[in-house]
């Protein structure tokens, strides 16, 4: 799975936003607002409350969206420096723009791809767009091996596994392979020193995210060039 197109800074009222289309046909918009006022019962004295809301394009949010919300919360909680914004709320909104109804699958085919990976990549881009303090950057990839489908989320620098969601039938070896491929897809290329990133065309989801962020930064800082 790759990102086909991604744009940032598209909504004026949100602090950060990103629209992402993945190769599996999912298109969605993520927006980030915050740090902002938190509802009293969700206020936490030493960290921000992370709220993720997912809205389908047809109908109202149901169990599928709730599951996605909780998966996103568990992915994003270790990434965002929530302790930098005590007693506030950071809100991530996901609006799906395509309506992929789960296709009935026979036992022989792997489960359909979920939108989790697209939603996560869009959230990360929106968070970066909003300049929310992050610990690191992560990238999510969907990998299908035989009858198993795996969503692998890794740290783009270290390749450390952040989150994995697997479905279907798969062997231990297949899972290992999925994780390995996810790592390869997600990581950005760095030189041996671990300090400086070298520009390289192509690459996986991690590279794609970096390319989008680079574009954004160059756009934002173009005013400096004229000096």
């Amino acid at each position, binding site marked *: 799975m790759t990102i086909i197109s991604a744009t940032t800074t598209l909504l004026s009222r949100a602090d*950060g936003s990103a629209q992402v289309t993945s190769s599996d046909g999912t298109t969605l918009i993520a927006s980030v607002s915050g740090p902002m006022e938190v509802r009293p019962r969700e206020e936490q004295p030493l960290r921000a409350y992370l709220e993720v809301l997912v809205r389908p394009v047809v109908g109202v949010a149901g169990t599928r969206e709730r599951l996605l919300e909780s998966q996103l919360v568990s992915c994003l909680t270790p990434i965002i420096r929530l302790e*930098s914004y005590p007693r506030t709320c950071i809100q991530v909104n996901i609006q799906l723009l395509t309506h992929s109804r789960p296709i009935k699958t026979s036992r022989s085919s792997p489960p359909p791809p979920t939108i989790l990976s697209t939603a996560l990549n869009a959230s990360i881009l929106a968070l*970066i767009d909003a300049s929310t*303090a992050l*610990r*690191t950057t992560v990238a999510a990839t969907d990998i299908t091996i035989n009858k198993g489908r795996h969503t692998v989320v890794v740290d783009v620098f270290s390749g450390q596994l952040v989150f994995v969601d697997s479905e279907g039938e798969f062997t231990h070896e297949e899972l290992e392979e999925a994780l390995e491929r996810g790592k390869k897809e997600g990581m950005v290329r760095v030189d041996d020193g671990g300090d400086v*990133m070298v520009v390289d065309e192509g690459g996986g989801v991690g590279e794609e995210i970096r390319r989008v962020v680079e574009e954004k*930064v160059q*756009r934002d800082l173009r*005013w400096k060039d004229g000096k």
Partner: protein
Amino acid sequence: MTADYTTSFRLSPPTSIHTTSEPTLAHHLPFLTLRNSAPSLSTRLQKILYLLKPLHHPTMSTVLLPGSPVSLPPTNTSVPLRLGPGLTHTPPSTITAHHAGTLTSDTRKNALWIPNLTRRYTPLQNDRVICTILRSSGEAYIVAIPSSNAPAPTTITATLPHLAFPGATKKTRPQLSAGATVYARISLANKHYDPELECVDEATGKAGGLGELKGGMVVGVRCGRDWGPVLRELGKVAEFEVAVGKNGRIWVEGKDRRTTMWVVRRIAECDENTWTVEEMRKKVEATKGDL
């Protein structure tokens, strides 16, 4: 995030860091102070220079992602290294980016930071902001520090004590009504508390340009840009007064309504398209007939 800027660290041996309060230093510079005396790090000089170089070669990418490790540059032991917005120090000597951007340095001040353009303002001590009075309560005004593009929802409420005006006493305090626009300095900012403001220069006891801004118009822009050069371009053809708030609000009052409108529109366009000074100059040339 805020606290990081106002606290200072001293790094004596490379392995241990302890926090010391250096209020004077922190007070004047919104930067994290880091002193590094480890000579072994000087070998990384080349890489740091490489990092900095592309600022002048925009085609070459040096964009840092959140989590990108940043090497400590060589420092002479006498001047402490200061870390500004976008950088986090993890003991003993790891520095990472926490938002995206290009690393920028000031060799004279020995400072490093990642500039960026944001919609939401984070209060920093000593920043001058343009804010709106919400109401008066007890001994202080409650004010909103609006961020970004107007009219955004208020997120930061701050207090402006009635006595934080030049020569103010209980009886002679300025009367500000709800909705009034005030140019104020952040006297206290901490991520745990609502910020506190003042409209008086502590050293001189005078206003120093702070206080209520009457008339004119306020335009919302993204935070993080240096508006000086652009405003100077506008000033070449139009006559207006201006106050720039770090919270992404610029107050403009032209010699007449037409001038104000012209300046406000130019600023808004400039923010929208992130124009360079050169592009602004062209636009000024093209539209100065409207004045």
